[in-house]
């Protein structure tokens, strides 16, 4: 295959991944790795390297829009980034020693979890109990504007639990080359009882920093190949941008079911190949 055709095919696939990822809110990075490794036979380490760069691009692009709306909680994000970046460094370290087939199996499990997680309902009651003790100095409680423009106050619960979950999200990001947005939202929404909209936007804000901590380690190990990063990064970015434009008109619910179905198949394929030592 000529290099031009190869680049064009990867670009088209990445664009579709970015489009579906942005329309469903699951992120584009999550299908890039199985796409490259299963469909194109790319070594999983190159796939991880290209994915993490694409994750930085889309999360930074999306966060630039969110942050101006004043919904993301900057202090909360920065505080929890301590946990995610430490996790990312640990994950990237583990990635050196973990056999690639084990990484494929873990990836499959995480894919399944993410698909399941996207259908879970998130109608948790938002906490208004004031934060006590030394944690209150962190000023994590805040407010956000709702769709009517009213400021809604919220508090945070179980900061230690959320911090540990963020650390795990960071490890997965560093080990697998994903944004692990689902786990970040889990930490904020389920554990810390932060409003869903604040959780998703703050998560997006944090993904780029977490991914950068992993990417600097990957870079020095030769995981990041320019010939792959070119179509993957530009493709995912173009798809995500187009997705954000048509988001209000798209049948997101139907797409979400289709995308979750695709993810489940990819997850099984990844696990099967991992157990068969093919990846």
């Amino acid at each position, binding site marked *: 295959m*000529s*290099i031009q055709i*190869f*680049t064009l095919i990867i670009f088209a696939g990445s664009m579709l991944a970015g489009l579906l990822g942005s329309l469903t809110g699951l992120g584009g990075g999550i299908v890039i790795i199985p796409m490259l490794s299963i469909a*194109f*036979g*790319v*070594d999983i*380490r*190159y796939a991880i390297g290209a994915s993490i*760069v694409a994750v*930085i*691009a889309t*999360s*930074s692009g999306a*966060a*630039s*829009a969110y*942050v101006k709306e*004043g919904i993301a909680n*900057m*202090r909360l994000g*920065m*505080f929890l*980034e*301590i946990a995610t*970046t430490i996790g*990312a*460094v640990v994950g*990237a*370290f583990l*990635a*050196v020693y973990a056999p690639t087939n084990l990484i494929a199996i873990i990836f499959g499990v995480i894919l399944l979890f993410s698909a399941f997680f996207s259908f879970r309902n998130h109608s948790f009651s938002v906490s208004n109990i004031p934060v006590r003790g030394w944690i209150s*100095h*962190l000023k994590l409680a805040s407010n956000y504007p709702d769709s009517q423009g009213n400021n809604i106050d919220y508090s945070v619960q179980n900061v230690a639990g959320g911090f540990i979950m963020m650390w795990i999200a960071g490890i997965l990001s560093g080990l697998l080359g994903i944004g692990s947005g689902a786990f970040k939202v889990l930490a904020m929404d389920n554990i810390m009882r932060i409003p869903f909209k604040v959780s998703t936007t703050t998560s997006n804000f944090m993904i*780029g*920093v977490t*991914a*950068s*901590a*992993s*990417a*600097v*380690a990957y*870079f*020095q*190990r*030769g*995981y*990041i*190949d*320019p*010939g*792959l*990063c*070119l*179509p993957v*990064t*530009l493709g995912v*970015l173009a798809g995500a941008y187009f997705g954000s434009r048509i988001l209000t008109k798209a049948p997101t619910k139907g797409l979400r079911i289709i995308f979750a179905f695709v993810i489940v198949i990819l997850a099984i394929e990844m696990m099967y190949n991992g157990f068969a030592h093919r990846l």
Partner: protein
Amino acid sequence: MNNSWQEKDIETMLGNVLRFGVILASAVILIGGIMYLTHHNSNTPNYTTFHGLQQPFHSLSAIIDGLKILQGEAIIQFGVLLLIATPIARIVFSIVGFLREKDMLYVFISLIVLAIIFASATLGIRG
């Protein structure tokens, strides 16, 4: 009220930093990509086996050397580095924002995050 206005100001600044970084990096990757695809006559590189550090552009000095002779792959890698640097730049600008708000605790927290990323970059855990 004054405080909340400042907060909004910082958020807008951080949003602009992120947008500028992504646009700049993408433009560099695109330019490098066009050069890479037009000057490359051989077949697709073999990605099925991992070459690790045999890949020529995994260090800053190698990328700079490649940039001097306008090598497409080096330009793409430089764009990738700009992209990796974008969230890091966001942290640096957050520190400026927290300093303006005189929130020393968050200046400190931001510096810790920066130090962790710096450690990840310099420890050089090689595979």
